[in-house]
């Protein structure tokens, strides 16, 4: 039994009267890819935002290696070891590709600075296939490369857990298979990843386990094959008639 890295217990988030996430619990073990899936508006992104410190949970606890993340500001969560990408790509537009990655390396979980950080950033860029564009401004990049840069920045702090919020969204079919292979290679390196995703192919081929959310609650958990054949899950996605 491998070690549990991230533990969510009865996590709830209320926005006024709206309960976006309602008492969700799950564990993420080391070297595992955990998918959080569910229809639009089911609370997946809210969950990711609570883990990364963007939102403070209204109740419940989120622990990383036994340390409480709930209620900590985002920069502390990042330093404790949670790296993330954003649903809509966020790069630092005035900086070069390398500097974008250095931003993650300088202040993240494992901090590097100076020539050591430069070397590390370039290793990462080569690793993600961005070696050729390292010196360019980010405005010169293709869409998938902007996603890669964001991923490199998140990895640069060597997080314990990597959160990918719809990282594969918006890619064309060729890019999608490249993207899936890239994340697969990250998994093979032994990283721990939580991904929110809509692309079913990606979920099947990448996730070791999945949590399915609907209307803010967890309705299923298991391997992708198990949850995707679950009647409750099919009902949530397609409605009663098809279940």
């Amino acid at each position: 039994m491998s070690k549990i890295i991230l533990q969510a217990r009865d996590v709830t988030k209320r926005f006024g009267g709206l309960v976006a996430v309602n008492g969700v619990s799950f564990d993420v073990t080391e070297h595992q890819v955990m998918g959080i899936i569910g229809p639009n508006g089911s609370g997946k992104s809210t969950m990711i935002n609570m883990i990364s410190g963007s939102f403070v949970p209204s109740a419940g606890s989120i622990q990383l290696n036994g340390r409480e993340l709930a209620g900590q500001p985002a920069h502390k969560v990042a330093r404790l070891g949670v790296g993330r990408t954003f649903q809509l790509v966020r790069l630092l537009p005035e900086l070069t590709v390398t500097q974008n990655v250095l931003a993650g390396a300088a202040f993240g979980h494992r901090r590097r600075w100076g020539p050591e950080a430069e070397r590390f950033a370039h290793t990462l860029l080569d690793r993600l296939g961005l070696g050729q564009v390292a010196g360019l401004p980010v405005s010169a990049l293709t869409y998938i490369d902007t996603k890669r840069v964001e991923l490199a920045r998140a990895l640069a702090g060597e997080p314990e857990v990597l959160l990918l919020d719809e990282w594969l969204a918006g890619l064309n079919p060729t890019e999608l298979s490249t993207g899936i292979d890239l994340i697969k290679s990250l998994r093979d390196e032994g990283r721990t990843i939580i991904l929110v995703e809509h692309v079913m192919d990606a979920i099947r081929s990448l996730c070791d386990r999945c949590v399915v959310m609907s209307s803010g609650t967890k309705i299923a958990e298991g391997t992708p094959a198990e949850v995707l054949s679950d009647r409750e899950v099919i009902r949530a996605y397609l409605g009663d008639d098809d279940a």
Partner: protein
Amino acid sequence: MSTREIRNLIVSALLIGLCCLLPVYGSPYWLTMGTTIAMYAVLSTSWALFSGPTHYISLATAAFFGVGTFVTGLGFQDLPFWTLPVIAAALGAVLAALVGMVTLRLSGVYFVIFTLGLAEMVRQVVTWVQNQTGHRGMYVLTSLTEREIYWMLIALASLVFLAGWLIGRSKLGFALRIIGNDETVAKHSGIDTALAKVLLFMVPGAAAAATGAILAPRYIYIEPSTAFAPLLSFQVVIMALLGGTGRLWGPIAGVIPFTLLWEAITRQAPNQTLLLLGLAFLLIVYVLPGGFVGLWDRLRRRYGGNQ
């Protein structure tokens, strides 16, 4: 340190040395102009250190400057003069830290308005205290000559440039650039954005207060309405933006032409100076979004020349 950095340091030291010679060789008129330029150089350059990378427009310069002049006004009879800019800088930094802790959680226009209000608030408080104690203004009569004031300002400007250069190379400087690009990314990359902003906001606060302390003897008579004049804050912003905040030397490229022009207009038509402020602002917005620095970079890119 690269050879290019060493070269830049040597060139800067030579330029500063050259500036120091002005009182020896220049006429009194140019010494007066030089003092004014040195004053705005300190204010605009230190302003740009914070506001350039973060894009937070601070209109608090007059507040810090005024505090500095009053430090000198209250202390010049009892303390050696050299301690006054130091005390003023410390006070300015503390005031900036307090203001920063309250306001830097705000963003955009709220920050601008608060900093503008700050100068007015400090002015009202000082006026109220003076009314309570029966004072009006204060005479600052010292034996300091204009050339001594000038040299002190040049020394202060050198310190500001040195600080700017060091910050630019530091992690703090990098953190500020990231914050200016995308504050959300900065937070999720592990940057304590509030702390970084407060720390850097203390630099212009200290520099402006020290400038005020050094310049108080030049005014001879100081009172709240002149010491905390909001116009100063706007002038500093316009000059810095005109020069461009992308480089350390940017603001000074705006300060020199603007001060000379301002002086020329003041002589011909004293009431039209505000027009210059407005025209310069329009020029920045419509023609020179990156200031002279941005223009310089664009031209260099267009006509060859790599880096």
